[in-house]
């Protein structure tokens, strides 16, 4: 549109406006709102000036006035109040949607966004069939067996048949609903609203359940340290005697901290009485030792321990290794215990 044609349009519109001078301004503005664009379309369609093709602006104004439905004087412009008739509100909504339709379309590579949405129709039919199947199961089965398949009575075969049936019916409805009468179509829409609400609640529930599951998973992984329940450490020498005040170190000489740490508190297993521990090393609570080594050198489990339990290091005094250690010194020597404490030969000969 070059400037001369634009000027022609502007002057034509102004002349029409002048000819409609008797009207309330709001009405007139509304009537002329789209006229420049419309005249530009007219101009693009043929040759000749606007006046040649449309008649004088005055005649145009008279025709406009007559056909705009306000013969015999325009009614008062609608009150600019808050109340908008539902139909008007709906028209406004449609206008906004229409604009959004055209604006969004190019962003996703289509002329109008609705062009793209129309392509999704069969996808919606499938989704609708699935949702109906799920709704049927929840309705009749109470949704006790919740999963992603519509399981009726826990049978996978039955659920697949139900799903297939619902999909087929939904597709058939989708293909034929266009030719339905008004009331069935309203019913279909109402059903769609219900289904969308159902799907939304189902989505929220499923989302929450998945998140709760992963939360439990994180919790269990915290338990991976097998020593997390160790409260005290009891070191026995090759003769089954409890080593008092033992210290544990790793290969770098760093102390190994197990149990409660210093200062510790001892709880009498029988009375439940707690007393502070005075031991700087392990065990903190010698009185709670699981095995009591008698002076004769034969260790007696205080509690009956199964063979696979925590006492493989408990030495057999009659064994060959134990025999190599001088039995007299075992009670007096305080070996510095390292994690390889189970090699009783080392500890026995230490210092």
């Amino acid at each position, binding site marked *: 549109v070059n400037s001369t044609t634009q000027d022609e349009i502007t002057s034509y519109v102004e002349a029409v406006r002048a000819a409609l001078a008797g009207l309330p301004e709001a009405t007139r503005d509304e009537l002329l709102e789209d006229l420049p664009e419309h005249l530009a379309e007219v101009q693009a369609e043929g040759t000749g000036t606007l006046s040649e093709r449309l008649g004088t602006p005055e005649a145009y104004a008279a025709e406009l006035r*007559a056909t705009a439905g306000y013969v015999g004087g325009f009614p008062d412009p609608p009150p600019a109040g808050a109340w908008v008739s539902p139909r008007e509100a709906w028209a406004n909504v449609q206008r906004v949607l229409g604009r959004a339709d055209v604006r969004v379309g190019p962003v996703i590579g289509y002329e109008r966004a609705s062009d793209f949405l129309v392509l999704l129709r069969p996808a919606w039919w499938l989704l609708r069939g699935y949702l109906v199947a799920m709704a049927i199961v929840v309705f009749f089965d109470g949704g006790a067996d919740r999963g992603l398949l519509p399981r009726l009575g826990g049978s996978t075969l039955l659920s697949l048949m139900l799903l297939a049936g619902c999909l087929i019916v939904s597709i058939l409805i989708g293909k034929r609903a266009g030719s339905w009468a008004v009331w069935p179509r309203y019913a279909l829409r109402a059903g769609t609203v219900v289904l969308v609400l159902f799907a939304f609640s189902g989505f929220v529930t499923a989302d929450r359940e998945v998140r709760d599951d992963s939360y439990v998973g994180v919790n269990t992984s915290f338990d991976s340290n097998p020593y997390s329940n160790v409260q005290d450490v009891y070191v026995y020498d090759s003769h089954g005697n409890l080593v008092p005040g033992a210290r544990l170190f790793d290969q770098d000489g760093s102390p190994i901290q197990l149990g409660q740490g210093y200062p510790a508190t001892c709880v009498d297993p029988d009375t439940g009485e707690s007393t502070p521990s005075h031991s700087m090393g392990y065990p903190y609570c010698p009185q709670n030792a699981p095995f009591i080594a008698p002076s004769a050198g034969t260790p007696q489990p205080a509690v009956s321990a199964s063979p696979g339990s925590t006492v493989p290091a408990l030495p057999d005094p009659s064994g060959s290794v134990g025999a190599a250690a001088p039995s007299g010194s075992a009670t007096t020597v305080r070996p510095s215990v390292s994690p390889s404490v189970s090699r009783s030969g080392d500890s026995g000969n230490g210092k």
Partner: protein
Amino acid sequence: VHRVDTTQLLKGVLDLAVLAALREEDGYGYDILRRLRGAGLEDVGDASVYGTLRRLFNAGFLNTYVVPSDEGPHRKYYGLNPAGRTELQRSGKVWHGFASIMDDLLRERETA
């Protein structure tokens, strides 16, 4: 005495004519004018179509959108919304009823 001519009759049914012209396909102002003239309503003026479209739109019967064009101006398309389709059906029935009454009347006159 009102002499019957198309211009006079058209005033009463222009809304219906424009709705009907949009039944199959959306269109912009000049396009609709061409459809009406092509259908035989040669007396329809441009201002009538423009004014009718404005009015039908304000009454909530039409939706509208702008289609950009490389050559020439953007075009404002109008289409029937559900309310417009309902109105088309309703007005169409009124018209058919009215037309058949007129047909009957005229036939009686002619045969009498």
